[in-house]
């Protein structure tokens, strides 16, 4: 890495690909771009270390699809970090990207500006940029539970970082709101560290977590799961002293008289993730109000030419394996552009969500850059049994897939062939879930 590292100091260098973010998405994008011939690749990461959120995910369950092995988060990241360091890929750590802009120079259409303690303020020129900035947690405000504002309220991801990276215990008696995988994983983690988890509370009538996590994170430790319940009051002067939980009706409104009180010192919130797109927004990239990430083509190119997006910044993934796969698409596409093998998309077909589907990504198909198969990712709007995913082009049904059970927490994947997409020219592709 050292040679290229030295070059990173020379302002004159024109990068092929600058990757913003060194999590699993950024790592996979950089490696794929390099392997496809882009030899000037730079990864800019805000933290002191590569690996992103995986550094704090010490539990196992990563990589089953990609490596047919159950790895922990750090092991999964480690494999990509090893691969990266075998290549002449430059890395800037503790470097926060402030913005990405467009330049007049057609040979160097993008500029990336970052600050770091060692480099100060720096501007680099690049042929392409891949945004892999990950996601952040919905903050406390998002739940709007009335009551006091004592300390002892954490988002689950922040708690995970304190415990797993900093070795700090966050509380002794804990209530967790939200039964997605992060909430479940934290219930087990805090129990192992000696805390008592009194309850996991879920607004919906079902958990968004994997069955495996329900069994191995809750049932193994006799932690009760309260479905169709929510936190209705936080009590405490300096520190949390009590959490009040109520049952909710079908409209998710708390039912008076159903209150349960828990004496505890800590409340964890695991109430969802949102793509992190400050940099994308600043660059003028158009965002999808459904995914909260950029609108992209199948090659993950945003509405700003030569700027790509992938991973949790694009849409929130539940499996890191899919993050890597998607990032490789973006990395290869950025390399192809940098090497002059592709041009800015002109002939586009739109893909969108129909009934019972919350979003579809990618949202646009570049007809001049089609592979044999194109994968679409989507999320359904509720838990359903025995339905089928239907892809329509105008009035014509072009694909149907039976699904025994679908759930919002499990991302669905549908592939379409080159011919099917070419035939869609001038029309719109709509994916819905039907009887």
């Amino acid at each position, binding site marked *: 890495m050292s040679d290229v590292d030295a070059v990173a100091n020379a302002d004159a260098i024109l990068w092929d690909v600058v990757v913003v973010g060194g999590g699993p998405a950024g790592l996979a994008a950089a490696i794929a771009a390099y392997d496809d011939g882009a030899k000037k690749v730079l990864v800019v990461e805000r933290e002191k270390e590569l690996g992103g959120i995986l550094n704090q995910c010490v539990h196992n369950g990563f990589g089953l699809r990609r490596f047919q092995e159950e790895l922990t988060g750090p092991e999964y990241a480690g494999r990509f970090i090893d691969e990266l360091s075998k290549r002449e890929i430059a890395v800037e750590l503790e470097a926060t990207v402030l913005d990405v802009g467009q330049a007049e120079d057609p040979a160097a259409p993008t500029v990336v500006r970052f600050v770091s303690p060692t480099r100060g303020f720096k501007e680099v020129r690049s042929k392409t940029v891949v945004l892999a900035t990950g996601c952040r947690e919905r903050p406390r405000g998002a739940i709007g539970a009335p009551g006091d504002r004592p300390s002892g309220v954490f988002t689950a991801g922040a708690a995970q970082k304190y415990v*797993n990276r900093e070795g700090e215990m966050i509380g002794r008696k804990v209530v967790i709101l939200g039964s997605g995988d992060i909430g479940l994983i934290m219930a087990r983690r805090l129990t*192992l560290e000696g805390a008592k988890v009194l309850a996991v509370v879920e607004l919906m009538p079902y958990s968004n977590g994997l069955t495996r996590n329900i069994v191995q994170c809750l049932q193994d430790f006799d932690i009760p799961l309260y479905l169709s319940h929510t936190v209705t009051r936080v009590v405490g002067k300096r520190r949390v002293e009590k959490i009040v939980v109520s049952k909710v009706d079908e409209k998710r409104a708390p039912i008076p008289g159903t209150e349960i009180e828990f004496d505890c010192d800590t409340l964890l919130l695991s109430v969802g993730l949102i793509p992190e797109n400050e940099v994308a927004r600043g660059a003028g990239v158009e965002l999808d109000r459904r995914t909260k990430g950029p609108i992209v083509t199948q090659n993950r190119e945003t509405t700003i030419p030569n700027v790509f997006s992938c991973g949790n910044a694009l849409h929130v993934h539940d499996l890191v394996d899919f993050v890597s796969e998607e990032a490789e698409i973006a990395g290869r596409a950025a390399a192809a552009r940098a090497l002059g093998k592709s041009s800015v998309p002109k002939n586009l077909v739109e893909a969108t969500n129909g009934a019972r589907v919350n979003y579809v990504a990618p949202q646009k198909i570049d007809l001049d850059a089609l592979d044999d198969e194109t994968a679409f990712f989507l999320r359904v709007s509720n838990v359903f049994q025995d339905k089928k995913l239907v892809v329509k082009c105008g009035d014509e049904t072009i694909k149907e897939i039976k699904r025994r059970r679908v759930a919002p927490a499990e991302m669905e994947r549908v592939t379409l062939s080159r011919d099917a997409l070419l035939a869609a020219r001038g029309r719109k592709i709509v994916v819905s879930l039907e009887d």
Partner: protein
Amino acid sequence: MSLQKVTCVVCPRGCQMEVDAEAGTVVGASCPRGRAHGLAEATNPTRTLTTTVRIVDASGEFVDMAPVRTAAPIPKGKIFDAMKTIKALRVQKPIRRGDALVKNILDTGVDVVATRDFP
């Protein structure tokens, strides 16, 4: 008659099984892998334990947290005792992914290994 209810976690379908460990019968599994898992859960349930170990410098000051795992699943009943041993442990750099930080924990024949490099 000792019927045990087990939720299968081998795949996302999550079949509900009823296992008679003595008779070796499993009702409710939809495939052989699930049946095997049901029997194992009813007779000798095991788990892979993942946690962290404190890394200290020569003077014993805290430097970082090393993520670790048991190299193979260990009996579920030994999880908390294993945690005690691992929590008391202090290690120093350098650490390489796969290094055994505890050998043969609680005589299970399984090592506790680092899952990340700390050069």
